Structures are given as C-alpha cells and as structure tokens.
C-alpha cells in the first residue's frame, strides 16, 4: 500500500554521501543519495555489487565507524536525524525502531548461543521482560515466521538449522520489537528459489501484520518486481532512477535500468540468439566519470552526458524521476517491449 502523500514519510534521506580516505585520496562510495520511505511501504534498492546499496544501509543504521569514513547529509526518521545521533541514542533505536536482516544469517547470528537465546536477548534489551516472558514471545514469533516446532527450534544453534530456517529466525529476531522500519540486505540471495519464494511471501505479509516499512536491498530485478511498491536504482554510488515499481518496470527511462532489464534472460517468449548485454563493467569509485557514471557503457551517450556535474533527477511522471539528460532533451526512451502484457508461460 503506497504511502499517503499527506503524512510525512517515515524515513526521509537527503543528500547522503559516504566516502572514505585511502592513501590520502577521498574515495566517494555513495554520492548525493536522496529517497524516502512511507509508512508500510516496501522500497527496493537495486544495484550491482559495488553500487553502494549495502553502504547506504550501514550508514542509516550507524554501523559505519571505521576511521577515515565520512558520512554527510541527513536521514530524518520520526523527527530525528539518524546521522546526527550519539551512539547511545542510536542503540536505543537500533533493533527497536529500525531492524536489519542480512544476506548471510550464518554470520549474523553468533554460533555459540542458541537462536532462542539471541532473540530473547534482543527482547530483554529493549523491553522489561523476564526470561520466561521473553522466551514465550520468541517462540510465538518463530511460529509466526513459519518455523516448524518453534519451541524446540529455539533451543537449536544456528548451524543446526537450514538456510531458510535461519533466515526465518533472523526475520523473527528483527521483528521481535515491532520495528517501524526493517532494512533487509539481500535477504534471499543465499536461498534456493523455492525457499526464496516463501521468504518473499513472508516479507510481503509483514507490512499488514506488523505495519513495518521495508527497505529491501537486492540485485535481483525479479525480486523487486514481485515485492516492492517503489524502486530506486543505483549505479556506481549514484541514484539512476526512482519511481513506483510498476511505472519503472513498464517504462524504464534511464538507459541503465532499461539495459539491465533487457539483459535478463527471459523465462518465456522467444529465446534471443544473444542476450543484449551491457558492455564493460561498472567503474571503480575513483575512476567514476565526472559526468554521467553510465556514459562509458551507454548506447545513447552524446556530448551533454560527459561534462560534470552528473545529471540530477528530472521528473518524468508522478513520483518517477530519472538522472539522465535524455528526457530533458525531448528524447525519452521507448517503453519496454517486455511488460506485464506479455503472456507469462
């Protein structure tokens, strides 16, 4: 259920920049990223490895504290700026108001305590509960996440569970304090497709049962199409395109989004002889072009793409914005040939 535009968004990120210093050089990782998430909205943050999606999540959670890292911009969440909070203030928020689930639940859990112990601990850190009360709630949560025999599973160690069950336990732990925002960093990437389908189904139900908003980070356009209300496409640390998922997939207006969608092998319809691949690889942060970062790989590159500064968002539809010069020059990309109108199977 996309958000009511009248109420302020739950999270409003403005001009987020993350950079670190290496050998005296400032390496920009994320540049001027702005986006917002409404109540009960699922926003998909898509991009390839190195595009800065995980760094964005870590910055919002206040989890980047390496020396030499510089985070600027603002991230307003329920009236507070997340980026300006002290460690203590952040700790009160983290887990309780904003929770995070990671790609690899094996490394996110500590191997030396049982799943149940770890969920109990989080509950007791944020609520005044006895061990017994916490465990009752833990078992309840595991059951709600579809873990079979939750009372016994709570007494198991992470290595004793399958990948799918570990991810369910991870989600149970993240939801234990009923957070308003759940950040899920590639939550299904390590899972098999049939289990991935189950977890995505679970994530879609979260907003109705728990009222949570979700920031879903993924590289899989299929996962975004099936799960997210709106989508933000990142390329090389910069926002390329954002919009309602439906609009963005029906009519991608950034050449990168369009090329990325075209390069996915289709599951139905005729098989192309060759896939329309994008030549080259994404640039390293230090080799990022001054103008549009995608220009070296783009088929539409022309003179106005090259000079700095990189193109900023221009509006091409309701809530649909694209960081490309083409729409402004009156040459928007054609609609995607492969849309929901194409019969599936």
């Amino acid at each position, binding site marked *: 259920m996309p958000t009511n535009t009248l109420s302020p968004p739950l999270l409003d990120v403005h001009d987020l920049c993350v950079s670190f210093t290496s050998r005296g050089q400032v390496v920009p990782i994320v540049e001027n990223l702005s986006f917002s998430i409404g109540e009960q909205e699922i926003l998909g943050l898509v991009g390839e490895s190195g595009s800065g999606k995980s760094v964005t999540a870590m910055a919002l959670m206040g989890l980047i504290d390496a020396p030499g890292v510089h985070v600027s911009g603002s991230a307003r969440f329920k009236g507070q700026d997340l980026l300006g909070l002290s460690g203590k203030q952040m700790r009160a928020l983290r887990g309780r108001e904003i929770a995070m689930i990671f790609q690899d639940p094996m490394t996110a859990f500590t191997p030396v305590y049982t799943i149940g112990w770890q969920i109990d601990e989080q509950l007791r850190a944020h609520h005044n509960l006895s061990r017994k009360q916490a465990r009752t709630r833990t078992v309840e949560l595991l059951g709600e996440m579809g873990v079979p025999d939750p009372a016994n599973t709570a007494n198991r160690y992470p290595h004793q569970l399958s990948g799918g069950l570990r991810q369910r336990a991870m989600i149970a732990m993240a939801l234990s304090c009923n957070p308003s925002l759940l950040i899920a960093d590639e939550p299904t990437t390590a899972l098999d497709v*049939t289990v991935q389908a189950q977890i995505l189904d679970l994530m879609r139900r979260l907003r109705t049962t728990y009222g949570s908003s979700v920031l879903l980070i993924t590289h899989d356009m299929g996962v975004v199409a099936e799960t997210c209300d709106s989508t933000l496409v990142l390329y090389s640390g910069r926002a390329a395109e954002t919009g309602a998922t439906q609009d963005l997939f029906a009519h991608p207006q950034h050449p990168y989004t369009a090329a990325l969608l075209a390069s996915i092998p289709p599951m139905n319809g005729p098989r192309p002889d060759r*896939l329309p691949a994008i030549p080259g690889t994404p640039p390293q942060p230090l080799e990022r072009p001054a103008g549009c970062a995608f220009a070296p790989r783009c088929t539409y590159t022309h003179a106005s793409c090259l000079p700095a500064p990189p193109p900023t968002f221009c509006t091409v539809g309701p809530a649909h914005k694209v960081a490309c010069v083409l729409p402004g020059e009156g040459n928007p990309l054609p609609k995607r040939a492969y849309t929901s109108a194409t019969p599936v199977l």
Partner: protein
Amino acid sequence: MQFPSPTVQAAPPRSSSGATQPLLAVRDVYKTYSLKHGQTLRAVDGVSFTVMPGEVLGLVGESGCGKSTLGRCLLRLNDVSAGQIIFDGQDITRLPERILRPLRQQMQMVFQDSYASLNPRRRIGDLLAEPLRVHRTPDGRKHTPMAIAHRLEELMELVSLPRAALERYPHEFSGGQRQRVNIARALVLSPRLVVADEPVSALDVSVQAQIVNLFADLQKSLGLTYVFIAHDLAVVRQISTRVAVMYLGVIVELGETDTVLHNPAHPYTIALTQAVPRPVVGAPRHAPLRGEIPSPVNKPSGCRFHTRCPAVQTRCQNEAPTLTQIAPNHAVACHYPVLKSTHA
C-alpha cells in the same frame, strides 16, 4: 599449424563411429559418501542420460540436489560409486589415471568461483600455458614455446581479452574478466566437452549476460558440447538445448528445453518454474512450495518429492517412480505427471 582454427573445428564431430553416437553417456551412476555413525550420503542416486555432440544439456536443481557432484563425476574429478560413464564410446569409469590423462584434453571444466580457480601467484599467461606443457601434440611431441605463445594469443582473442592480460595476475581482473580467463583455460586444449558448474551465478546481472553470450558463441563457433550446471532457470533456458531437473540425487524430469520449462510434467519442475521471480510487475503469483529440501542423508521414502508435493497421493509415499518416457524426448519420474499445460 598445430591448432585447428575455429572454423576447422566446427566440422562434424570427430567421433570415429558416426554422429549418432552420444559424446557422453551416463548409465545408472551413484555417488555415495560415508559419514559418521554408519550413515551414508547418496549425493547422486542412480542417474542416467546421454549428451549428443554439439548439444547443451542444462542441469538444474536447488542446493544439495547433487548437480555439482554429478558434474565432477562426469570428468572423473570424483570417482563414481557405481554405474558407468562413457565418453565418446569409451568407458572411462575405471580407467587408470595414466590412460585417462590423454583423454582429459577432450573434457574440461569451468567452476563458479572465478578467483578460487586461478592460482593467485601466477600470471594468466603462465596459467594458460600449463595444460600445453602437460599435454603433448597429437603426434606425441612437446608443444614448442612458439606454438604455446601463438595459442595463448588466439585464446585471448576468442574470449575478448586484451593480449596484455597474459602478463597480469588474477586479482587484477573483475569477476567477469576472470571468468573469461577460466573459459580460456578450459579451451586451451580444444576440448570437445566442457562441464560448466554455475559459471555465471557469482556475476552481476549486466556482466552475466556477456558471459552467457560468450558461452553460446563459443559453443557455436567451436562446435562444443556443454553440460551447463546452474540453479537459474532463465540462464539455463537461454543456453540449453535440453534440460535435466534434479531433486535429491535423481533426475525428475528430462527433455527439450522448451518442453521442460513451458510444459513441465513433474510437480517439482512446475513449482520451480513458478518460483522464479520475473522482472515484470503483475506477473501471476503462485503459492510457494511448502517446506525445504529434506536432508540427502535421510531421504524420504517412495518419491523423494512427496513431502513437499502439492499433488501427493498414498502411492507416492511408498513407491519410488522411475524416469519414464511420456512423449518423444520427454521423460519424467512421477506417478501422476501433469500432462496438460493447465498449470500455466
């Protein structure tokens, strides 16, 4: 010229006994591992299929289904516990290493992890030259340094890497470029069969398409035969002529790519095709399959899929179905195969 040029190689298969003979035949292969407490893990549990020259067989399945173990068995990187592997009419299952070695020139492998499969301390040129130093020319002589240098340059061109890449180390390349190096290494000795184990699953989408295209181009221009192992059905659909779907050590469905993926007859294949998230908003959504893959150590009785099957019947719990032909070029291991495409 010691190495046939690509156009020469594309000539009909070199098999002495005609083109109708499969390049690879797998007959009732088992691979079991002994575990603690007297348990056995049957990773591959009675698999048979053939691959004709010039064909691409896609091997799909979820983790733990035995597809990688089977792939390694095909090249005798693992010895099989029972059954036969016949390469070009010759049973290689029990061949001693000394006799097998010359044959290995004709079968090569590409792995998923492009970095782990290259020695980080050796230059690309050195890595690619090694097979040529190990193996001899068809007339039994050593490859001359000149011939090796020439072959390496040819290979770089084949996989679209600059010649300068030969002087560099594996860490200097991106994942996609490293996978090109791995493909080049697999092709050094002009093999006839390439087994690729998840060769594109570690790559980003925009790079994945390049490598899938490269595999397809090389297959056509060099007349190669692939066994392409992957969990991504869309990638398998793009490259394969036939598809085998594995579940817990057995093949549950085998047939032409379009038949298996568009008219699947096995409930597992149906669920698998429906579970693939498609980059299309409003694609019909299906109820996901219940449960997870059971442990390959304690496999369910009867049909292995019966614990998760939406159409399970009593017979499925007791009696294991065998892979049976239901149409020309379409076999399925199910007591109650779905014959019409009503599930679409």
